[in-house]
């Protein structure tokens, strides 16, 4: 209760962007999703119909604010995360049946990468393995360096945070990955690459920050080479049942509180991603709910925050980091209620003649 008290009082004026989303299905043709003005509570805009389209300028301004918020959040928090958890800024992958010790968490984060590659049936043999990779929302480059080393490939990482990009490059250079791995400050919604560059398009826990899921997915597809693989690992909300237009009010409420602290725009479901990818003719679209495989993660993060090192680090970081830390129990709540899902979605771009 005290956590929710702190996170909900006094921050209502905090601006955050809303999601843009379109979907199609056999019964519903693609329709542009609706945009909401800044500051209103979000419904799942995928299913909302019948409201007037707002001025796109207000949407862009909102996107800019979100982008700035994300950059500042990570500029501020990356160092403390790296200090305590290392260079992978994503969930570990755990066997639901076994007990987990604290020391296993870093290994679990590596397992998350390997399991994701396996799920996408990524080829390992020399001729077919990816030669060029893009890490979309790369953090401090943990995945980039791991994938580049694993495949002997070239990897570009993009992030909104200049601090992260610097640190990522520093680590790459220090680890002798000179030339193989490089990082830029760039927007996943407008990737600074020509079309069809990458054999592997990797988005590990960055999708939840993207305000326009359709644009996000379109960019992932645009930069993928023909025959290339796209892997998205991200936080989604539960799929809606056919009779549901949107999440229940108390569910939206919980997500809103998380969104404000973590600089997240509106959430979508795993089914939404699958639908988007299929609607642009991606092949072999697969998805899975890995929520059971990440259950130990948030409790472990909270535990690490409550150590002496954790508390002192938080107190010397900024309020954005502290607020993010305070909201962590809400993530556990979300998972426990079956509202938040840890999802993987993969597909292949068709080989065009």
């Amino acid at each position, binding site marked *: 209760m005290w956590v929710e008290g702190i996170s909900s009082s006094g921050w209502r004026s905090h601006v955050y962007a809303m999601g843009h989303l379109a979907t199609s299905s056999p019964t519903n043709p693609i329709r542009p999703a609706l945009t909401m003005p800044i500051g209103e509570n979000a419904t799942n805009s995928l299913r909302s119909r019948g409201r007037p389209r707002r001025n796109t300028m207000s949407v862009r301004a909102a996107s800019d604010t979100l982008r700035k918020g994300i950059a500042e959040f990570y500029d501020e928090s990356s160092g403390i995360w790296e200090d305590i958890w290392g260079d992978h800024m994503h969930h570990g992958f755990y066997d639901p049946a076994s007990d987990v010790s604290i020391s296993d968490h870093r290994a679990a984060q590596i397992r998350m990468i390997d399991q994701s590659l396996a799920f996408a049936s990524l080829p390992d043999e020399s001729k077919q393995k990816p*030669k060029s990779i893009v890490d979309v929302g790369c953090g401090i480059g943990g995945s980039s360096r791991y994938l580049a080393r694993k495949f002997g490939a070239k990897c570009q990482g993009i992030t909104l945070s200049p601090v992260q990009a610097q640190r990522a490059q520093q680590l790459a250079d220090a680890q002798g990955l000179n030339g193989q791995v490089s990082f830029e400050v*760039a927007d996943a919604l407008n990737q600074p*690459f020509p079309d069809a560059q990458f054999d592997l398009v990797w988005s590990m826990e960055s999708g939840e920050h993207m305000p326009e899921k359709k644009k996000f997915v379109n960019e992932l597809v645009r930069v993928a080479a023909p025959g290339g693989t796209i892997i998205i690992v991200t936080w989604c909300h539960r799929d809606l049942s056919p009779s549901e237009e949107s999440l229940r009010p108390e569910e939206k409420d919980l997500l809103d509180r998380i969104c404000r602290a973590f600089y997240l725009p509106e959430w979508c479901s795993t089914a939404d991603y699958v639908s988007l990818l299929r609607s642009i003719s991606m092949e072999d679209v697969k998805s899975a709910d890995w929520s059971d495989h990440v259950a130990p993660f948030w409790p472990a993060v909270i535990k690490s925050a409550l150590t002496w090192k954790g508390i002192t680090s938080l107190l010397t970081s900024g309020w954005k980091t502290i607020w993010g830390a305070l909201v962590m129990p809400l993530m556990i709540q979300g998972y426990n209620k079956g509202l938040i899902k840890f999802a993987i979605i993969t597909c292949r771009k068709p080989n065009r003649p």
Partner: protein
Amino acid sequence: MRLLTHNMLSSNIKGVTSGFPLRIEVEKMVEKEVELNADFLRNMFAKVEWKALVEASKTLGYTELPDNVEPSMLDSDEFLNRFHHALLELHLEEGALVCPETGRKFPVNKGIPNMLLHEDEV
């Protein structure tokens, strides 16, 4: 920013039809020695836009790359060394990447390009 990276970046400002390659404005450039990996170079050769690499290396003061190339040149150690040097050892630390169509400058600070587009460019 190495020229391998420059070879991958383009200006995707709304309305721009040929945003590649970006021109380079140099404020500070350094050379950093890096171990040569012939396999990596051979893999990259097919993916590199050669003309863009030659132009970019000239901007950074390196003029030893041949204007025209073919795969058989990868057997020559001398060629590999020059290719390696241009691709991986020349660094733009401070300066800008310039959109060839609009002239818009994307800053490069501490070796990291900032390719974020403004509101009116998307």
